[in-house]
């Protein structure tokens, strides 16, 4: 007699739908399986269920070594898998003219040295994003887990994804909309440095309005970042490239930064995303817009 309790009709349903009732019970950590469990499990079981074919003895193909996934990495992988599986995400691609930003950075070089602050392009993005979030409050929001309420935030904190030897960390710049570029630049440098040493405090992470993940210093032309819940969007940045811009008949080289906004479609519609990114690109192209 099977240790899994299921009525005869439930067992028949499971067989018809190709669900292994004992495996399902183990997966759900239950002894009793009902018909609802079967109908509910049918689709995930088809897409995410059977991973037995992943279990390959790789050494049969050549030499291998094994290293354990750190606890940190295991937690991250669970969260990422859940975010990818549960959020209907769309990625919107945009690019922004960074001529003005580059010019500003150049002209402020002396002052930067004097202040001891490295004014990176990322600092401009943090500043621009925090202003954009004030202009588009639905992007600065979280959906409750039951999907019944949208929580709108009257603060702007920007998460910065930092690549470290021990994994991805996301320290947060608090109240970025009320901070100037110099301060933002200094905080980025401080947090990123401490993240490398794994010295970011727990209270310096979490609670972000939106996260920026910046691959600009490494390369790439576009990517599709995974939304970091409970945030509803994430902004990806890749390497600036010089593109040909046409002023009438005259070609002009313009440095443009590729921008990729992945967003939770339950909260944000495509048109909103396009408006948001147009606005954002405008702030980057002409930073004076951040003042008005």
């Amino acid at each position, binding site marked *: *007699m099977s240790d899994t309790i*299921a*009525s005869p009709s439930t067992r028949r349903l499971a*067989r018809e739908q190709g669900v292994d009732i004992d495996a399902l019970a183990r997966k759900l950590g239950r002894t009793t399986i009902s018909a609802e469990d079967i109908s509910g499990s049918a689709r995930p079981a088809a897409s995410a269920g059977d991973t037995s074919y992943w279990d390959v003895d790789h050494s049969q193909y050549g030499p291998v070594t094994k290293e354990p996934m750190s606890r940190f990495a295991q937690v991250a992988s669970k969260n990422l898998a859940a975010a990818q599986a549960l959020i209907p995400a769309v990625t919107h691609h945009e690019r922004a003219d960074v001529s003005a930003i580059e010019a500003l950075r150049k002209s402020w070089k002396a002052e930067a040295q004097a202040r001891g602050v490295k004014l990176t392009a990322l600092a401009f993005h943090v500043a621009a994003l925090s202003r954009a979030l004030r202009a588009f409050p639905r992007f600065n929001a979280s959906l409750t887990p039951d999907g019944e309420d949208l929580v709108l935030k009257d603060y702007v904190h920007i998460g910065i994804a930092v690549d470290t030897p021990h994994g991805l960390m996301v320290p947060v710049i608090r109240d970025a909309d009320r901070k100037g570029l110099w301060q933002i630049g200094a905080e980025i440098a401080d947090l990123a440095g401490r993240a490398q040493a794994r010295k970011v405090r727990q209270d310096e992470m979490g609670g972000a309005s939106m996260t920026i993940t910046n691959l600009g210093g490494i390369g790439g032309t576009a990517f599709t970042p995974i939304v970091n819940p409970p945030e509803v969007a994430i902004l990806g940045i890749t390497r600036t490239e010089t593109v040909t811009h046409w002023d009438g008949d005259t070609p002009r080289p313009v440095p443009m930064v590729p921008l990729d906004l992945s967003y939770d479609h339950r909260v944000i519609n495509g048109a909103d995303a396009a408006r948001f990114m147009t606005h954002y690109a405008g702030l980057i192209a002409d930073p004076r817009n951040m003042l008005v």
Partner: protein
Amino acid sequence: MTDTTDLLVIGAGPGGYACAFRAADLGLSVTLVDARDRLGGVCLNEGCIPSKALLHAAEIIREAQHMADWGITFGKPKLDLDALRAKKDEIVGHLTGGLTGLAGRRKVTTLQGKATLTGPNSAEIEGTQIRFDKAVIAVGSAPVQLPGWPEDDRIWDSTSALELRDVPKTLAIVGGGIIGLEMATVYCALGAEVTVVELADQIAPGADPQAVAILRDAQEAEGITIHTGTQVTEVTTTKATVTLTCTGAFEGQIKAKAVIQSVGRRANGDKVGAEAAGLSVSDRGVIEADATGATDVPSIFAIGDVTGNPMLAHRATHQGHIAAEVIAGHRAALETTLIPSVAYTSPELAWVGLTEAQAKAEGRNVKATSFPWAASGRNLASGGRDGLTKLVYDPATNRLLGASIVGRNAGELLAEVTLAIEMGARLDDIGLTIHAHPTLSETIAFAAERALGTLTDL
């Protein structure tokens, strides 16, 4: 001439006709063949149904006798064996005729004759070739004939015993399983002096010993002599008697006017030309089939007694439905291991699921709870005698795992516990389900409540 059919079902017993009818309902063209001139197989023609008719007659005789205690006395019953036989045959005829009607309504082609497979997709029936896409072997089983026994008209098997040729003054029954005990019940009531010889240490081997003891006491009280742990070593015949020489718990000779052999049934797998189709048949006549009825040959399925133990009609019926569904392209399989057993003796003995002995053999920790029928109002008020309802359960979860019931209508009562086990019920579920009062079914709830400590009827 060659006929063709989607599905050929060989054997029209409860497995075969259920399979054929289900397949026809699912849209297949079906041919159902049986060597008998009537549908229904052993069960309807010479097994379950005629034996129940005779057991009903036996019960009426016994009940009439017992009414003397109640101040109601009948005369000694007058037996008209021809009329009783005719009544039994009438019931069988009614049911088998009904099956013919059901087959016709479904446009199932029925053929009479012995079918022999000639290949994985062909068979021969009395000289006619038939080609099939799929075949289901449902040829059942036959009573085991013990080796070394003489040929003699007074040595019967269950089939000839149910023909009711006469009521011998003395009758020996070799084999105290369900069939032997039912025959003892019938012939004892009809007036024979019955002796049962069983090789195992208890009658109804495999059933719960506590329940079996109640049945044994009742049968002995009716005048049946029972020798367990006893082997028949020699059978000799004279003009007057058949003599059984016994060793074991009973040493000596039993002289009887007739003997019934009921030492089990043997699968008929070696009687259908299975080898020609590429199938292997065990030396016990069994054709192996999986939970869908599939055999080693993709075009051929097997169901019922021919696939081995337990050889019971209700198992065959379920297997038949499943094979039909699988052949029609559906996903199905026999999911359950719960196959109820019922001896239609007086009193009836019925069991399903795990017994304590089986659980012990499997190393599984179980507990048992029971309710004696001496405390059942409905049982006593209906003239019922001793009886027992016993439930086997998992002490960690209170989940019901098995049941044994001995007493009047035990076979009917068993359905509740079988469903309860299928549904994964706990003793609490049974105790909290309101059972009508006064009924015999209450004994099931009482047994559950006894284990839970909530019983107020004991």
